[in-house]
């Protein structure tokens, strides 16, 4: 590397020293004749150049042999001018109206002029994706695309990104889109505990249940190095994705990677791009804590309590914690407002990237290496993410007719994740920590006052012990790539074969330390005592995808062009997993399956799925302003019964560029297009839902189990009849979507509108319908019901100011989606999709209402709305009621950019309104008395406002005014139940506004850069998620936080169960091009 730099540097000096030079000057104006300051003027094929001054003038010394000048400026068409013998070259630049008429990558990697498309697409370029220096290319889309709901589950680095396009569309299958890189689908498995441990059914493992230590090692869609991405196109509708077949029924994210630059034409062998960024993370949102009451219970001090139900702070210095060797710690009895916040560190993410690219007119190559190293906000590196990517691609025109492309990517990930949920989870402990306890002082968990034996509370474990001794580590090696062969048989006919593969080998290690206070010590017998455990899982994923396509393109008449495509697709997926775990360790700190006298639990799993598709598409183009596309695909899927294996779905869409048809080309309306599309898409079932099976025997009471084989002289193994009845009649889910929209461009495309209306219906939903237990089964896999999503997406982009060196761009997008579960099978009026289960808060669906309703028990009330309390004065639970939908009512994004000379300031605001989520942070801080809401009435006895007591006399129910106050005896249980609102108090509004991105970048002027060995130098300050605003009723958690992540998108909309806090990030970024 050093050598290369030196060579280039010397070369540039030599060019400067020996060339004969001459002066060229001139003025650059725009189409209105106004000066364009800050425009670039470069001698083609060199690094020699300058920028225009405020009056649009430039002066440049060029080598004698120079032939061409290149004029460029953002938003204007780049122009080349032969120098000839001129000394003065003035230039009139015209605005780049082609920006709208850009080329879009559509299904199967087919590039099409956007004006031909009968459906909405959104494309974001590399610049938009890397501005905020998110390590996830998907998070970088947040707030920038209409119709797309993107959430990141937690602030732990590398956690999953959920992407939902145009609303939930499946109850039991995946709701996430298909990820396609360079035309080939890639794996987007979410490596959460529910999917890590088995593909499909949850097998279980140590600390892996959703409520007890959920893990999230991210989704594989985030493996792509953002720097390698040229663009991401979001295909939202069935019209857009129909050719991809069943797997794209929920839309598709089309990633196009960078190709090699044809540097030879610029006189260089290759180009080197180097970028380096350092980004820091800090906690974005903690619950609002009270700072009035300290450790204790029933209003009195209790040094062993893990709650803040003690007396008011008085500042008096008193002993705290356990007495150890006749000594005790002391501290003032006063609040530590930041005792939780101080626990967290500043997280750090370093991203370094180097890319080489080059080529000739015939062949190009691109190579890159990137390393992302993140250590999250928790002390220790128990929350860390390390990703290395190595990419190589080459494209070559082997002959005039034969082109070949090749791409290979290697990803190595190594990450650690801190267990979430309620099982000795660190954040869970922190939220309960009494307001006066200096938890950071317990950092040395071997200190006699802070060790397992003596840590202050009988009800908690030193979080530093947990962070340092327990762990969840994930390692993955993944290779994916593709090969592309294209043979142009004749001018009219071309054949393409594209085959891609995606293989990953992964290993998950989880371990829990032996947690056993010394017998007789103060903490002996705590409920978190743990004999220690270790679990190891190895899994392997394999996917291969092949498309063979024949393209035909012929003019039919003088006005009509015909394009045709027929293709054949084969997709094979296989995953294997082996898992072993054992609880009860013999040697402390040694985490091997062998380290236990207990029998290890061992499971294995293999899942296979094959899909074949045949497809055809016809494109008709009338005079380049009226377009019609008709397509059809038939799939055959291995997951469906033989008779239903084959399913067919057609699509049609049209686009009419009326400005061209009517010859409108005035300066007001410069571009106008209307479009419409109708399409169907099928979605197959998960594997193995057809045939009856037996499952290994075992039974649980919800706490512990009886496992087979049964011990004894002869071990007895057992199998049970599976509780789920397979369906031999299963049909695919069929999506039907109609979409209309228009695109308008005004004032030479300085003001643009893109509006879509869609109506999507998904029929024959595949779902495990609950059966009465008395049938001998719990559920049957059936087709039932219908979901609809109707919505509007609008995008406005504008360039209100563009004068010479100053440009202001604004983009606003708005999305409103109405989701509805139209019907279920007869007799079924409710299904549970997720949540806490039993009487707790749950996520349910009911016909006639949106999919994903939060259902909770509020207080029992009289007909006129008065709260009914029991004999203890506490509100009585009422019936469970639907509180509303989980999904947002509407979302909007606002992006703006200011460019002045080399400076660019840009920002994105993400606004999401409405919807509900469950928050354990709310529940826990109320239970433990740390929440600010528990200060109600100064914690003095009070009578629940507007409350009555019920008097039952036979069938006669009357109410009397309640006179029983809530007192210190049941204040804690009053708040534990959620206060006056009972469980409904833990369901919060999902509304929020986030400052998603803010960056300030500076491109060194080319006249400065030209004196260096570099071609381009860019410095930036970057920030993401800098501010979060929520309605005042949410004082507890970031509404984006998610714990219930099954990788399919639906259950994760329930909310958070101790999800670690989200983070804000800020840092700097340097990019250099050689």
């Amino acid at each position, binding site marked *: 590397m050093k050598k290369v730099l030196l060579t280039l540097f010397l070369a540039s000096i030599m060019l400067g020293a020996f060339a004969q030079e001459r002066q060229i000057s001139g003025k650059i104006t725009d189409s209105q004749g106004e000066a364009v300051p800050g425009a670039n003027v470069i001698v083609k094929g060199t690094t020699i150049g300058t920028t225009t001054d405020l009056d649009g003038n430039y002066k440049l010394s060029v080598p004698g042999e120079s032939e061409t000048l290149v004029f460029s400026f953002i938003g204007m068409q780049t122009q080349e001018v032969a120098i000839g013998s001129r000394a003065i070259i003035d230039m009139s630049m015209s605005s780049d109206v082609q920006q709208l008429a850009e080329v879009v990558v559509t299904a199967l990697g087919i590039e099409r002029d956007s004006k031909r498309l009968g459906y909405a697409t959104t494309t974001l370029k590399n610049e938009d994706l890397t501005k905020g220096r998110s390590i996830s290319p998907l998070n970088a889309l947040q707030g920038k695309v209409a119709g797309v709901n993107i959430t990141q589950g937690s602030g732990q680095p590398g956690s999953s990104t959920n992407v939902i396009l145009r609303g939930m569309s499946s109850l039991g299958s995946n709701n996430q889109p298909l990820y396609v890189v360079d035309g080939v689908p890639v794996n987007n498995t979410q490596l959460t505990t529910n999917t890590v441990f088995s593909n499909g059914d949850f097998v279980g493992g140590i600390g892996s249940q959703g409520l007890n230590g959920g893990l999230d090692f991210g989704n594989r869609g985030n493996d792509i190095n953002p720097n390698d991405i040229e663009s991401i196109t979001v295909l939202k509708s069935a019209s857009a994705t129909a050719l991809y077949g069943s797997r794209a029924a929920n839309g598709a994210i089309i990633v196009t990677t960078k190709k090699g630059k044809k540097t030879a034409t610029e006189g260089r062998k290759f180009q080197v791009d180097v970028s380096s960024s350092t980004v820091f993370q800090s906690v974005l949102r903690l619950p609002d804590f009270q700072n009035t009451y300290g450790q204790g219970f029933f209003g009195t001090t209790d040094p062993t309590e893990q709650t803040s139900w003690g007396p008011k702070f008085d500042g008096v210095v008193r002993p705290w914690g356990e007495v150890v060797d006749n000594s005790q710690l002391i501290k003032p009895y006063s609040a530590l407002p930041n005792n939780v916040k101080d626990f967290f560190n500043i997280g750090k993410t370093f991203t370094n990237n180097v890319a080489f690219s080059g080529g000739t007119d015939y062949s190009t190559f691109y190579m890159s290496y990137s390393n992302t190293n993140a250590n999250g906000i928790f002390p220790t590196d128990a929350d860390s993410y390390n990703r290395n990517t190595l990419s190589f691609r080459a494209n070559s025109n082997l002959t005039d007719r034969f082109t070949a492309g090749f791409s290979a990517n290697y990803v190595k990930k190594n990450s650690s994740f801190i267990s979430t949920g309620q099982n000795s989870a660190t954040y869970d402990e922190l939220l309960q920590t009494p307001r006066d306890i200096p938890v950071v002082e317990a950092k040395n968990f071997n200190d006699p006052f802070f060790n397992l034996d003596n840590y202050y509370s009988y009800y908690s474990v030193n979080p530093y012990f947990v962070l340092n001794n327990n762990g969840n580590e994930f390692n993955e090696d993944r290779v994916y790539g593709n090969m592309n062969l294209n043979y142009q048989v004749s001018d009219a006919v071309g054949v393409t074969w594209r085959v891609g593969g995606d293989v990953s080998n992964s290993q998950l290690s989880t371990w829990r330390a032996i947690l056993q206070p010394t017998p007789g010590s103060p903490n002996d017998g705590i409920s978190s005592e743990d004999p220690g455990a270790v679990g190891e899982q190895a899994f392997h994923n394999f996917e291969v995808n092949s498309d063979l396509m024949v393209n035909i393109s012929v003019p039919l008449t003088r006005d009509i062009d015909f394009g045709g495509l027929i293709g054949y697709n084969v997709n094979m997926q296989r995953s294997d997993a082996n898992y072993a775990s054992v609880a009860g360790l013999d040697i402390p700190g040694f985490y091997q399956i062998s380290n236990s*006298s207990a029998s290890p639990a061992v499971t294995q799993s293999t899942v296979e799925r*094959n899909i074949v598709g045949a497809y055809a598409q016809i494109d008709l183009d009338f005079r380049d302003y009226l377009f019609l596309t008709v397509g059809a695909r038939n799939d055959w899927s*291995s997951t469906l019964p033989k008779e239903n294996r084959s399913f067919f779905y057609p699509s049609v869409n049209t686009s009419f560029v009326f400005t061209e048809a009517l010859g409108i080309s005035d300066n007001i309306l410069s571009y106008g297009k209307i479009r419409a599309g109708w399409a169907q898409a099928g979605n197959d079932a998960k594997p193995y839902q057809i045939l009856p099976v037996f*499952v290994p025997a075992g039974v649980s009471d919800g706490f*512990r189990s009886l496992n087979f084989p049964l011990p004894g002289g002869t071990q007895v193994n057992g199998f*049970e009849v599976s509780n789920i*009845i397979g369906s031999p009649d299963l049909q695919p889910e069929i999506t039907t979507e109609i979409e209309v929209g228009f695109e308008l461009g005004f004032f030479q495309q300085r003001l643009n509108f893109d509006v879509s209306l869609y109506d999507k219906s998904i029929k024959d939903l595949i779902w495990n319908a609950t059966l009465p237990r008395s049938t001998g089964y719990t559920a049957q896999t059936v087709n039932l019901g219908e979901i609809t999503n109707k919505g509007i997406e609008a995008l406005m982009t504008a360039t209100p100011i563009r004068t010479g060196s100053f440009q202001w761009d604004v983009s606003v997008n708005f999305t409103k989606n109405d989701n509805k579960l139209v019907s279920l099978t007869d007799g079924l009026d409710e299904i549970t999709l997720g949540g806490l289960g039993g009487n707790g808060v749950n996520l349910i669906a009911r016909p006639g209402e949106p999919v994903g309703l939060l259902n909770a028990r509020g207080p029992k009330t009289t007909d006129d709305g008065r709260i009914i309390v029991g004999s203890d004065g506490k509100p009585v639970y009422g019936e469970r009621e639907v509180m509303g939908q989980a999904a947002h009512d509407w979302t909007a994004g606002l992006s703006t950019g200011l460019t002045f000379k080399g400076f660019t300031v840009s920002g994105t605001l993400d606004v999401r309104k409405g919807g509900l989520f469950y928050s354990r942070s709310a529940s826990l801080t109320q239970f433990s008395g740390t929440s600010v809401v528990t200060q109600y009435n100064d914690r003095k006895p009070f009578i629940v406002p507007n409350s009555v007591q019920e008097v039952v006399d036979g069938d006669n129910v009357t109410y009397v005014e309640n006179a029983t106050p809530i007192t210190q005896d049941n204040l804690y249980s009053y708040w534990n139940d959620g206060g006056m609102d009972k469980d409904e108090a833990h369901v919060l509004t999902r509304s929020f506004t986030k400052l998603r991105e803010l960056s300030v970048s500076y491109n060194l002027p080319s006249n400065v850069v030209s004196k260096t060995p570099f071609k381009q130098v860019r410095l930036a300050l970057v920030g993401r998620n800098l501010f979060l605003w929520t309605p005042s009723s949410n004082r507890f958690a970031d509404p984006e936080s998610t714990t219930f992540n099954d990788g399919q998108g639906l259950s994760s909309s329930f909310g958070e169960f101790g999800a670690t806090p989200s983070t804000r990030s800020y840092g700097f970024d340097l990019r250099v091009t050689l």
Partner: protein
Amino acid sequence: MKNIKRYSLVGLIMVIFSTSCGDDFFDINTDPNLPGEASVQLVFPAGTAISGFIIGGQYQILGGIWSQHWAQSVGASQYANYDSYDIQSTTLDARGYGELYNGALNDLKYVRDQALATENWNYYLMSTVISAYTYQVLTDLYDNIPFTDALQGLDGLVQPKFDEGTVVYDGLITMLDEALEKDLTVATSIPPGADDIIFGGDMDMWVQFANTLKLKIYLRQVNARESVASAGIQALYQDANFLAADAHMTQFADELNRRNPVYETEVDFSGFPNLVLSNTLLTYLDNNGDARLDALFNFPNDDTDGPHVGLIQGNFRAQTPTNKDGLSQPALAPLDPIYFISEAESYFLQAEAIVRGYGTGDAKAMYEAGIDASFAKLGLTPDATLYAAGGAYEFPATNTGDAQIKAIIEQKWVSMVNSQGLESFFEQNRTGFPDFYTVAVNNVTAGNFPRRLLYPDTEISSNKANVPAQVNVFTNVWWHK
């Protein structure tokens, strides 16, 4: 010509691809992880162990508390709802009712069906006995339950109707009789081995188990259908071939998820905070100088010499002692067996049948054999002085005022401490003995004792049309006195 070459190449590639995707390519939807078939030898122990796990686990805790063997401890509250009779439609729903239907009975039905089809009468009898045993528990807890329509989900019967308790009871007798009539010696009747987790393959014992179960079913109806009970029992006494040993499952090991379920969850998992000696039992055993007390309960505060301290039933909110350490706790062990029918219970059933005049034999001897078996069950030497003349448990000379029945059921009650709480609860419901229960202090039933469970939520929400209207937890079931 050149074009033909080109097109044929394209064609060839397409042919290669299309032929590679025949039916074999799609016939991969047979789950490689789970078998499509399983022998009765593998499914029978699963169904039986699940039935035992529920009845000897969570139901044992409920029954132990409702039989006033145990009380919910102070300073904890896991089972406070049981001990205040605060039963909801969610109580022991999926993990009790549900698991018995879709766990135990569903597997046992598979074994019965397979055994019937192959004339494998040994397994037919075994699975029928455990099925009948499990159904009786369900109907005794819920009264009306799905029976004739039950377990037919695979045949499309997904909304089973509920049958009245009498229909279930008659059905159980029919099931058992049908299985008992089969010739167990035919060649198609495969001898069970270790997979018979109750008797290790001893079919004579299974016949005795079936007969004793029939005796139990008949006796339960003495109040409601006396004639059915007497006729049935008289017929049983043609052979009088009843259990003289425990019908129990002992396959436990002291390691995670392989222990006795009450020990596993309450002691090993929870740290044993919830279950303590009830004053009702303490007073009885104490007054009678019964040595079983020390074998059944540990002294408070890890003392070695007592005295025992019990808790007034339902007084879990008491301020003293502040936690379970000041109270006697049941002496549970990881390898404690789960009893379906104990030897002592068999003798007490026979004693009652004789007292009632349906059976023949020496009631007093049976009664004393029951007490002896109860001592032996705890590893104690039987203490004949207790039932000798003048002893605390002397068998009454006559049944005047149900005196003999009272003695039998009280002793059955004691014999079932720590192991068969649910059966003991049913027997108190049926006979009214022991008659010295105290209603739980914090009861939510206006002073009424609990008599049943509520129809469960999962069934109500998925089988709305058929679930009977919910009744109070203190509503008697049909055979109640």
